[in-house]
């Protein structure tokens, strides 16, 4: 594959800023436009940019397969577990996913706000890992086929 020094340099400089922007989008989901889904997709897109510009094997080294598999289910576990914690901490009084009963602060509404933030982060983790995982699977397949034909 032919390499372009301009594309490589620009993406090397831009990728940290894209990732920073995605974190901004996730954290600002509560006060402005944004949220877990959008931020997760932007973070995954930064990884995909890395894989497209550089090598797929070096991209795999940055995010190994085991870490990717764990991360893709971790977000869902945080989300579902947060709902379970609400029942446990309220000793059965509160409903599933009623974040007010989580013991972060003394204020019920503050707890709900923090619960929303945590849920957004969890959604972001899952969406990012699944995006990258799907892209890796599709890209690997293509490379294997090319190897078989030659």
């Amino acid at each position, binding site marked *: 594959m032919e390499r372009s020094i301009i594309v490589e340099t620009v993406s090397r400089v831009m990728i940290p800023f894209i990732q920073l922007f995605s974190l901004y989008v996730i954290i600002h989901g*509560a006060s402005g436009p944004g*949220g877990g889904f959008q931020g997760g997709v932007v973070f995954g897109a930064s990884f995909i940019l890395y894989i497209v510009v550089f090598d797929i094997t070096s991209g795999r080294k940055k995010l190994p397969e085991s870490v990717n598999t764990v991360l893709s289910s971790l*977000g869902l576990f945080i989300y*579902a577990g947060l*709902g379970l914690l609400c029942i446990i901490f309220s000793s059965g009084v509160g*409903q599933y996913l009623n974040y007010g009963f989580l013991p972060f602060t003394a204020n019920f509404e*503050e707890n709900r706000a923090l619960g929303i933030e945590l849920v957004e982060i969890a959604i972001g983790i899952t969406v990012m890992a699944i995006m990258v995982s*799907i892209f890796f*699977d599709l890209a690997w397949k293509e490379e294997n086929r090319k190897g078989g034909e030659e």
Partner: protein
Amino acid sequence: MKGLSTIALILISLLCALFIYVAEDIPVFGDPNSPPIKYVRLFSIDADALENQLKRSVIPNNLMDEFEKRGFPRPFRVEKVTGMEGEWNAFVSKEEIHYSREEKYYWIKKKGDKLNIYRYAFVVRWIEKGQEETGTPNMVTYGLADYRGYDTLGETAVIFTAGIAVILLLRRRGKL
């Protein structure tokens, strides 16, 4: 490797159990008591002479003035809640041209010697009470993550399932 598989199996069965619980716990469609659709308390007023007027299905003038003062629409009909003592529904006629159906709007309940005025409406809770209840200024976010938390949990599960399906179909290299 075997220990890892056991841990994964335990976690997966825990998640499955949680999802079964969620499926059981979801409010019934159209349930009037599901959290976002519940009534919101507006104000309370002394119930000395008003109760008799309400019992005769007449809306007292005092009450009308209170609604007017607070900028709420005037009810035009009041009706007793079936099977409940000391509770009334007040109806408001919609002013739109193509949709002039009356709407159940206020809920009046007697508590002690006071009349409590509540308001039914999904929009009130979402728009006017949302920030107060959740401490989050963004209307979309508290809708997504708090009031419709079950929905978002399902959406995340759909994305997860899509990823797992792609892994099962395309990853043919022996190790996961």
